[in-house]
Each structure stands twice: as C-alpha cells, then as structure tokens.
C-alpha cells in the first residue's frame, strides 16, 4: 500500500512491516574506521599522532628485545655476545639473568630441595578457592581444578618431593576434587582448613602446631553453636574458650601429639622467604582476611550503636591517614617494645597483620559505598518480612552491596598485592627491589638494570591482570537486574 501523504491523509496500516537488516554503511571495517578513527579533523590528527607515538615506541624498544641474550651466565658474557652478533654499540637485554636466577625471584632464599612445598601450596590454593570463586560455571571450575591438580602434583614431582609426600598429595588431590564436585559443602570446610595446611607446608615444623590451633577455633565455634540461643553471650563464651585453649593448652597438646605421632617437615625461617613466594604469601593472606574484616568494619560504621560506630570510624580514618610504610615500621620495630622480651613473633606474621589492617580499612570504605547504593526499601522490605539484622545483612544487603562493589574490591586486592613490595623497607626480600638489588650485587650480574624489573613486572602483571579479568567475569555472571 502507498505510504505517501501519511500526515495529511487519514491512515490505517494494513500490513505490518517485516524486520529489515541495517544498511551496509552501518557495518564493516571501513565504517568502523570512519566512525572511530577519522570522524572529523581533530580525530584524524589524533589518530596520526597516536600512530606516530606507537611507531616511535616500537622503534625505540624493539631492537633491545631483538638483541636480547638468554644463554649467558654473566653480564660480561652477555655483553660480548651482543657485540659479536650485532656489532659495536648495540644494546640488548641480558635475560640470561632470568634463566639463571628465576628461582630466587620466585622463592628468595628458600632451600631448593624444599621448593615443592610452596609450589604445591600455591596450586592447592586454587582447589581451595574453587568452591568459593568458581561455583557458577562447571566448565571453568573443571579447567581451574584440573590445571591446579596437575600442576601441584607434577611440579612437586619435578622438584623432587619425597615419595611418601607424592603419594599423600595424589590421594589428597583426588579426594579433594571429588569433594569439590560432589559435596561442595564439605569442600568449603576443606577450604577453611586449607590455610592451616598452607602454613604448615610453607614454614614446616610439626603438623600438630597448626592442627592444635585449628582445634582451638573448632572448639570455640562448637561452644558458640551449643550456646547459640544466648545470642551475643555465646559469641563471647566461644571466643573465651578458644583463647584459653590457645593460651594454655595448644602448645603442650602439640608437643604431646608430636610425640605420639611424629609428623613434621623441616622448619623454615621467615627471613629466608623472598621474591614472589613472599609477595604471594603476604598478598593472599591479607586479601583473604581483609574482605571479612572490611565487611565487619563497613557494617560497624553504619551501625546505630555509637561505640561500635565510633570505633569503626576511628580505626578506618586512622589507618587510611597513615602510609602503609609507617605501619610496616611499627610491625618491624615498635611491636618488639610492647611484646614481652623473648617472644618470637614472626616478622612475616607481623607484616601480614599490618597489611591486613591496612587493606581492611580501604575495603570497608569500598563496601560502604556498595551499602550506600542500596535503596532504603531493601532494608524495609527485609525488616517487614521479619528478618533480623544479621539475616537481613547476609541474605539481602551484603549479596547486593558486594556485587556492586566488586570492581572496587578487586581494585583493592590488586593494590594490596602490589603494595606487598613495600616490605622491602623492613628488610624482607620483595621481588622488585631487595631481591633485584641482591642479585645485582653479585659479581656476575652487576649492571643488570632493566631485566629484573621487566621479569618481576611481567609476573605482577599476569597475576593482577588475572584478578581483574576474574572480576569482570564475576560481574558478568552476577548481572541480574536486566534493566
């Protein structure tokens, strides 16, 4: 039918129009170029400036990478090789350093015979995280769990772990994977226990040390559960029982159990930790602990109870007002004054506590932003249905607030992880400065400047970029409001 005079002539549509494809100009590479790079004068100039900068950067740095040498065992040898191959005056990277010293970048001064311990702890970490982080997609979970299991076992074997350990590892991994797939609730409990296993693997000593400390926590929770109808009193009772156990009984129990059933690994010194082993140990611990602490602080800051709120505000503002380095100095120097003489309070533990406190203050503010973004109606609807404060928080408020805060939370995680390099200031061997300096101070690698930074930077980038991708994946998965 005719479409003319639609405005002037009374009109009734007889047939509905079918959907039609967009015109060709709206699609394709040419269209994309025109729309994004050459739409107007300014844009075109900027495009050319950008291209020029890219070309300049490439031209400047590419030869250095192209001339780089991997199989040289000292700086001098590397320089000679480059001159031989590329002529007088050619510059190039001496990545032989990475090949020779990668183990120090990764493990610091951890004894090579024991490398299997941090390696298996690292890969088992992914099994522990799988029931928490990868519940939404079975395929992804299988990939993560599969890669982590194979890596944990194969690398331990490669690094010369003793046979009994390998057998335990294999059996443990198989059982654990079965749990993750078929009894996720039990796998969650294993995830909670995992930190104790990791501590034992990393620092060694008798397994009964971490085990009795874990027993204290279980005992406290059991008391809390048994008395739960008394509310806050039950929490206090549980806490008291746990503290009493740790204070008076756990070390003796550990010694007795060790005598009954000796089970130990060679003990490691915290001062020997270095490189990414150190950064990941501190980073992961601080990340895992700062999230719950940050949630509690954020809720406390929103609380109606003036004392709780006041404490949260003072804590958050104080921590955020002080540089992390100050807190680290407090950890390394000042704490010694306050502790009774002779107490051996591990330096890494002290640093972890400080980094955790630091991160949790930032986390609290990020989460507070998420809490503030929820409309009041959510609280009212939950209240009107009869949910009490904790149920409301757990079921309605936090799931939504945390979802909104994911970019901020992961941003804080990434920041914390990179900030772990600051432990260089309390004499620990961070991968970026202290360790690189140590390697540079050797006769062979004197003068290697860029290579350690490039190598460490690359590993940091891979780890941080994975976290960032994971956060985007999670946001995508949780997108539910379809608005």
């Amino acid at each position: 039918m005719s479409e003319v005079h639609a405005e002037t002539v009374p009109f009734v549509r007889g047939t509905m129009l079918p959907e039609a494809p967009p015109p060709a100009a709206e699609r394709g590479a040419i269209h994309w170029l025109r729309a994004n790079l050459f739409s107007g004068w300014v844009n075109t100039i900027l495009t050319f400036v950008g291209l020029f900068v890219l070309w300049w950067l490439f031209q400047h740095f590419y030869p250095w990478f192209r001339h780089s040498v991997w199989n040289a065992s000292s700086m001098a040898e590397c320089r000679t090789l480059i001159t031989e191959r590329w002529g007088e005056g050619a510059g190039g990277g001496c990545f032989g350093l990475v090949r020779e010293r990668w183990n120090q970048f990764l493990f610091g001064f951890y004894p090579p015979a024991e490398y299997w311990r941090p390696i298996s702890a690292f890969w088992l970490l992914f099994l522990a995280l799988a029931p928490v982080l990868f519940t939404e997609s079975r395929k992804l979970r299988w990939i993560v769990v599969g890669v982590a299991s194979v890596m944990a076992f194969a690398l331990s074997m490669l690094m010369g772990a003793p046979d009994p350990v390998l057998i335990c590892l294999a059996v443990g991994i198989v059982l654990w994977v079965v749990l993750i797939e078929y009894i996720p609730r039990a796998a969650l409990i294993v995830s909670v226990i995992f930190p104790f296993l990791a501590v034992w693997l990393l620092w060694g000593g008798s397994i009964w040390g971490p085990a009795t400390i874990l027993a204290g926590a279980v005992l406290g929770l059991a008391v809390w559960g048994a008395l739960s109808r008394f509310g806050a009193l039950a929490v206090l009772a549980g806490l008291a029982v746990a503290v009493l156990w740790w204070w008076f009984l756990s070390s003796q129990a550990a010694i007795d159990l060790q005598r009954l059933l000796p089970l130990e690994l060679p003990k490691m010194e915290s001062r020997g930790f270095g490189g990414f082993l150190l950064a990941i140990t501190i980073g992961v611990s601080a990340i895992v602990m700062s999230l719950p602490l940050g949630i509690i602080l954020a809720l406390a800051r929103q609380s109606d109870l003036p004392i709780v709120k006041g404490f949260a505000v003072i804590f958050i503002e104080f921590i955020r007002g002080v540089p992390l380095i100050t807190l680290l100095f407090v950890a390394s120097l000042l704490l010694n004054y306050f502790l009774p003489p002779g107490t051996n309070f591990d330096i890494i533990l002290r640093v972890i506590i400080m980094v955790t406190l630091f991160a949790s203050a930032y986390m609290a503010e990020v989460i507070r932003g998420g809490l503030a973004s929820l409309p009041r109606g959510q609280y009212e609807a939950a209240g009107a249905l009869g949910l009490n404060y904790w149920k409301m928080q757990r079921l309605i408020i936090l799931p939504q607030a945390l979802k909104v805060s994911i970019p901020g939370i992961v941003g804080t995680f990434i920041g914390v992880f990179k900030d772990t390099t600051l432990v260089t200031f309390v004499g620990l061997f961070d991968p970026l400065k202290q360790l690189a300096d140590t390697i540079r101070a050797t006769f062979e690698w004197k003068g290697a400047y860029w290579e350690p930074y490039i190598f460490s930077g690359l590993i940091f980038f891979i780890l941080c970029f994975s976290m960032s991708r994971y956060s985007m994946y999670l946001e995508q998965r949780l997108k539910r409001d379809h608005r």
Partner: protein
Amino acid sequence: MTYSDNSTARMTADRSAMSVGDEVAIDIVKMNKWFGTFHVLRDIDLTVRRGERIVIAGPSGSGKSTLIRCINRLEEHQSGRIVVDGVELTHDLKNIDKVRSEVGMVFQHFNLFPHLTVLENCTLAPIWVRKLPRRQADEIAMRYLEKVRIPEQAHKYPGQLSGGQQQRVAIARSLCMEPRIMLFDEPTSALDPEMIKEVLDTMIELAQDGMTMICVTHEMGFAQAVANRVIFMDQGQIVEQNSPREFFNNPQSERTKLFLSQILGH
C-alpha cells in the same frame, strides 16, 4: 457532590463474604511521633477489628505512610500505645519480630529483592524466619503465586517483570508468611494505568478472603468496593472517619471536601 470514579474500571466485590469480627486486630491509643522536632503524627487513636478493611487517604506529607509504618515498627513511635494482635510494640526486639512476622507489608515501589528469583523472594522469609523446610516453602510460594496469577514467572528475576507483575509478586511474598494483617502503602501509585487494575483485583480478592487490611491509597473505586471505613488524614491527624458512602457523598470537614474535589478532578 456525588462520587464518580474516573480512574479505574468499575469495581465490584461481594461484600457479604467480608465479615468483620469483634476481636481487635490493631489498637492504637493516643500515639504521637516526631521526626526530630517535627510533630508528624498527633494523638492518633485507631482501632481495627479482625477482618476490617480500612482505607487511609489524605494529601501528600500528611503522615499516612508514617502511620502504617509504625504498625510494624519500621518507624518508632514516641508516646502512646500500639498493640498488634495482643502484642504491644515496645523496644523489646522479641515483640517486634513477632509483630513483623504476623503483619505483611506492600510498598509503593515493590521493594522486591533483585538478586533473587521470584520464587526465592517468596520463600526467603518462610525458610529463614518461619524455619520451614525448602520443599514446603516452595509449595506455599507456588500456591500464592498462583493466587496472584503469575506462577509461570516463578523462575524469573524481578527485573524481568512488568510493574504490575512485580507488585503482585510483592503481595505474594508477604502472603507467604501467612500474615493476619496486611498493610499497603500506595501499592498502585508507581504503576502505569493499565496495570493498576490487575493489582487492585488481587487486593479485592484478598479482602474477600477476610484479610484484615489497611491500605493507603487514592483509588477511590477500590475504597468504594471493599472498605469498611475511610480515614482521612491531614497534618498528622485523623480529620475524618466514615463509611465510604458517607465519606464520598457527604464529607463533613472543609479539608476533606477540598481534598476530594482535587483528587476527583472537579
């Protein structure tokens, strides 16, 4: 002045089925509330019997929402007494929990939980407050979703539903706690005109089942069809209280007359 319904289709309800008992459901005596120094509710006296349907009307800011929010303690009153189902609202948290699990509330903006499916919205409180097993909670939820005629949407998220559907889910969510009293705070005023009727129909059915209801609404057709009493509030006070017929056809106070002339568009 005669009443004319200009906004909604004519509504009818079988009033013979809606009996009012002698038992007192809500008793409010000389209740006062302040927001800071602002005296928002003044000497409110109101008794609601079991099975009664009360419509509260009044200009914006007159304290209607605040009044019904005091009934389930979303707001705290400062003097006077509020007794709901024989339980007085005081600072005792146990009483508050008890009242809240007996009183359902429907909000202007639905306030569904966007991160949960429709079914999960409905089963949340039965599972976590009433401690019902999931199977039983699911059954109850499906029963009430059928009652509000959207069982087929059970596994969608609220953001995928229209406003009218969302409000009906909100009603079902409240009903799943099997409350003895329902409070409605302008349940249709955020809805597009074509969706108002589906929500009002649901509410009329609820009234016919004998539910005790307090509705803040300006839907005068609804008031005509089901209310036992219409209460007119202004400046934090109950100004007039009467049967719907008398209220609309023979309003007493000047304020009421002015208000009716405004909302009825004369």
